[in-house]
């Protein structure tokens, strides 16, 4: 069974074996508004936990996307680069950002589960 966890920077991460799929949460898209631009990390590059791994821009402002775990970028989602509005439509499924080959699974331990994240997001926006 795959495990979904959440970061304080409003990313979600789904781990399947060694493959981690990462995107931004619905709550994040609601805060950002209409997303009009997405930039993703280079395939083959290595990203470090809590480091910048992309950018999303709304009509109002640019926001960095962080990676909640370290690893090698093995795939990126061209669909959201071509049509960034897909991120608003389906942020936690088809509009994933990038996939990593995870370096250290214990990095998942410090992340929040769904229930914890929902509480965190609610408090952050209150």
């Amino acid at each position, binding site marked *: 069974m795959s495990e979904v966890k959440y970061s304080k920077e409003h990313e979600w991460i789904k781990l399947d074996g060694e493959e981690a799929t990462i995107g931004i949460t619905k709550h994040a898209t609601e805060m950002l*508004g*209409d997303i*009009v*631009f997405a*930039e993703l990390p280079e395939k083959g590059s290595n990203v470090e936990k809590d480091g910048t791994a992309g*950018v999303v*821009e*709304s*009509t*109002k*402002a*640019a926001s960095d996307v962080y990676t909640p775990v370290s690893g090698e970028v093995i795939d990126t989602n061209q669909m959201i*680069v071509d049509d960034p*509005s897909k991120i608003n439509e389906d942020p936690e499924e088809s509009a994933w950002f990038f996939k990593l080959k995870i370096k250290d699974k214990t990095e998942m331990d410090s992340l929040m589960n769904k229930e914890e994240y929902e509480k965190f997001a609610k408090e952050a926006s209150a």
Partner: protein
Amino acid sequence: MSIKKTSLNNLHIKYGAKLVEFAGYQMPIQYKDGIIQEHKYTRSHSGIFDVSHMGQLFILGGDDLTNDLEKIFPADLKKLKTNQSKYSFLMNNKGGIQDDLIITKTSDGFLIILNAACKYNDYEVIKSKLDNKYKLNLDDSLSLIALQGPEAKNVLNKVIPGCNNLKFMNGDNFIYNDEKVYITRSGYTGEDGFEISMKHSDAETFVESLIKNGSRLIGLGARDTLRMEAGLCLYGNDLDNDTSPIEANLKWAIPKSRIETEFVGSEVLKNQFQSGVKKLRVGIKPDSKVIARGNTKIYNDKNQEIGKVTSGTFGPSVEHPIAMGYVDNSYSTVNTKIFLEVRGKKIPANICNLPFYKKNYVKGEINV
């Protein structure tokens, strides 16, 4: 200082606005639909904008006032007919812009619409330059509501009959709910539209009736993307105390008849008219989908810094990133290749014509 609320504050909340502080007021940045849909609805139908935070300065006086105001503003106020409006500037002695504004001649003086963040300072500057000879009223008992878009004239005409006879940059008195309202045909979106000045107590029912007739409330977010597509300046971003109207590419707003006459900043402007300017405001179109926002540095193909972006966003109607900014005048020609430094990378872009979106101003029903 506490945050001020406009007469439409309850209505903003009712329609699901995200509220932000802007120039000391609690204002809607967007409603439930979001900026892109609000932007597109204004371009295809009509949108209602709460602009009550802006200053409505009434100055009472006759020919003496006209003469004295011409010593302040570079507009041809003597030629202005009653109810006619002109875009102009309050400048400093260096020719820098303290505020950009709209002056309308009224039956008993002038009405000047000021930017919210500048209005109190403008009031003091204008009052002192007029030597306290006239009665000035920065009227905070009035709301100001803009209705913009191709359907604006039909929507407003149902609520206030007769307003669709107004010509662009002209105004008149009308009656709404037994009260006098002042309407001008003007706006800040590149669309046909109106600005309606009315008592606070009538504003909410007035806006509800516009909504019933098919219009929607639009927030400051879409107001910003609409004005950028229309190539219009935002004071504080694209215009400031160190930038003259000539540098801002707003030479058209300074009539030839005034160039040789005296007004605040006239020496600098006259000199710039004769010898040209070092920097010039231009339209910028990035080649790719990357957005260059205000303060992005601009480079030439030799990696030399030649200017900076002052406004930039994604244009929902043109479906492409757009920007404007100032470049060294020698790079201001349309189609000049420039580079924008975004997140450490040099993004290729071209100097382009403004506006990005073609204007739809109506010169009056007769000419349509």
